[in-house]
């Protein structure tokens, strides 16, 4: 049963690693703006499409029009 020392040590180390990661991410301001990134990530492929279809400006890109 002395394996429990190892297990405890591992579990607490893992917990502390995640805890530190959480604190660091808060500190870096990751949680200050919880909305914009959710919208921004939807834009990515649009930009690519734009640069390849430069001459077809009028081409309607069908996609979710909800904001």
């Amino acid at each position, binding site marked *: 049963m002395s394996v429990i020392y190892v297990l405890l040590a591992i579990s607490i180390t893992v*917990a502390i690693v995640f805890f530190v990661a959480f604190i660091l991410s808060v500190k870096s301001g990751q*949680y200050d*703006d919880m909305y914009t990134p959710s*919208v*921004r990530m939807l834009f990515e492929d649009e930009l690519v499409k734009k640069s390849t279809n430069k001459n077809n*400006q*009028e081409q309607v890109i069908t*996609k979710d029009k909800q*904001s």
Partner: protein
Amino acid sequence: MQQTCFHCGSDCGKSPIVFDDKNFCCHGCQTVYEIFSTNNLSCYYDLQSAPGAIPQEIEGKYDYLDNLDIIEKLVEFNDGSIQVVNLYIPHMHCSSCIWILENLHQLQPEIKSSQVNFPKKTVRITFKTENFNLKEVVKLLSTIGYAPYISLNDYTEGKKQVDRSLIYKLGVAGFAFGNVMFLSFPEYFEVSEYWLDQYKYLFRGLMFAFSLPVVFYAAQEYFVSAYKGLRSNILNIDVPIALGILVLFIRSTAEVFTDSGTGFFDSLTGLVFFLLLGKFFQQKTYSFLSFERDYKSYFPIAVTKITKKNESVIEENIQIYEVKKGDRLLIRNNELLPVDSILISGKGQIDYSFVTGESEPVDKVSGDKLFAGGKQLFGAIEVEAIKSVEQSYLTQLWSNDVFAKDKEHGFIGIINSISKYFTWAVLSIAVIATSYWLVVDSSLAINVLTSVLIIACPCALALSTPFALGNMLRIFGRQKFYLKNANIIEKLASVDTLIFDKTGTITTNKKSTIAYEGLSLSEDEEALLKNTLRSSNHPLSRALYNFLAEQDIQTLDDFEEVTGKGMHAKKADNSIEVGSAKFVGNDTETDTLATTVHIKTNDIYKGKYIFHNQYREGVKELFQQLKKDFHLIILSGDNHGEKKFLQQLLPQRTDMLFHQKPEDKLNYIKTLQKEGRNVMMVGDGLNDAGALAQSNVGISIAENVNVFSPACDAILEASQFQKIAAFIKAAKKTVSIIKWSITLSFIYNVIGLYFAVTGQLSPIIAAILMPLSSITVLIFVTVLTNLKGEKLFKNSRNEARA
């Protein structure tokens, strides 16, 4: 069919500009479309239909950004070749806005990157300063309809540090809570098992270690608040909480080190975690709104100073704090007067609606005194400053102590008023139970004393208020009623006197209704009138022009405008005179208070157009709903020209006071408060700022919540005005829900006290009872506030429709 602008969505009128098969309401919108489509950014219109805004005139508006001192204070980072600036963009409202603002680099290669923070409505732009500068950035944003809002507030305040300590504390408490639960779980069931006995010292030691940061870091503010309360002789709710936490910790530590039990570390960490969660939930802030604005954010950053040197005129931009007595200033069209001054040259037409509440612009001629805060509406004027900014008539209002006072101070909420009795009750139960056990079985006395203090720790009690208020705050937010903090709801529930400002609050500041009185005009005369008005820039002329039916455009044979009086025009055989009563020679006019435009054609007096304020939709209904429960007062800075009309419109018992200066309003509210009234003030302009600060609840009405509203407790979007009654009702309901939840948590406390007093409180009972009571109370208030909110606002929506 009505055609709407492809860019901004507003009505195009009868003759839209057609470009690229699309309709536009104006050339401004068309230009923006052209810019976007030539830069491969027309995707802007796919994300959201008609997302844009009509670009504003920018000529000369941002010249102050040439001033290096100002730039230095506005930019966040500057290493000579690269600058970073964070700009507030009020128009930002949809995903198209985010998209276009983050693709600015496609429009302007000097812009390296831009990042939007949507909740705050800001965009952080990084740009190269080579052949480029901040002024160009701002100009670019303005030309595409995203004019940034730069105010003196940003300028003097500097960069604010975000306070994230609550999240850290919540993180610490949550982390410790999870681990302690996991370590204490085995002992809940098998206390005397062989392996458990073997390792329990390790488990308990670890739990103790985890609880340390919770007690000494996460729960810190409860100790601080309790200490502060005790020092000022107030038994606030944090006193029993702090006591509970302390006793939990001391007893658990003692148990662990004397090997007499496992302690209550699970309950301890859970308690702190839940309490902080409540705090976090209550802390909803509307980061794109500011409730602390004073005149500084209303004023421009800089003005144009004119210096004459050897015949040549030098115009330079100076910061408005540098304006000294005697300086000559150039005020352009639609600019604000930053200081009290004397008009030197140009036609002054000053709109004081924001400062005094007067609804019509005033004409001023050379030599007249002008007050700070007025807005010049017609062309550029030259003025001479007679005071500095801080000493001006308007800004002096802010030296009143009411602005230095912290409104939160001295406010005792429902929970804190109960906690006094609660704390005494708990302490006396603890004393009685302990003395009983001292007699019966003294070995249990300490156990009972600590148990009582632990179980009576008002966790559920302390959680009910933040969750009820926090939830209602969010419901209000969805109804476009933005509160500064959750306590406002409690204050709102206790008001008994409602004061309304007139101009801009119960009236809209955009439209006015116009009525004609007198002999009817022939068709020719009406056409002539319309064409005469077309040539004038006076606001009344513009309003009347828009009011009259469409006529063919004719060229007048003769036209002359006499500033501040009126104009006369001729067409073929007809002549017309339009203007004030005196101007058209009508001496019989007695009612000088109403705003009127008189008409005289071919030397015969015809009649007058009377301008009435346009009252907001639902004003009458709202006052009818409110008159039963509240004392209603109208406090206006305007003249009493509308008094008769208001008396018809509003319930009979409504008091009306006119000609109220900003200080008068403030003092009036002070007198009411001395009589013991709880006053709610609803206002809009800078002239109400003092009254809003003095009142128990100050609500500012805003046509556009992003633009400007004076310091207040809450901002209400003008379109929701008729819901005020529903909001007050909802606040009252919230308070009664809190009262019910308090009863509920008392029941839990009584059950817990039974175990404590009889000396049977084991860690497992505490571990079950504490979270159970907290969670049921939580669910109770959340569900009830949601139901009430839904019901009330659905009703008010139906009423508004009916």
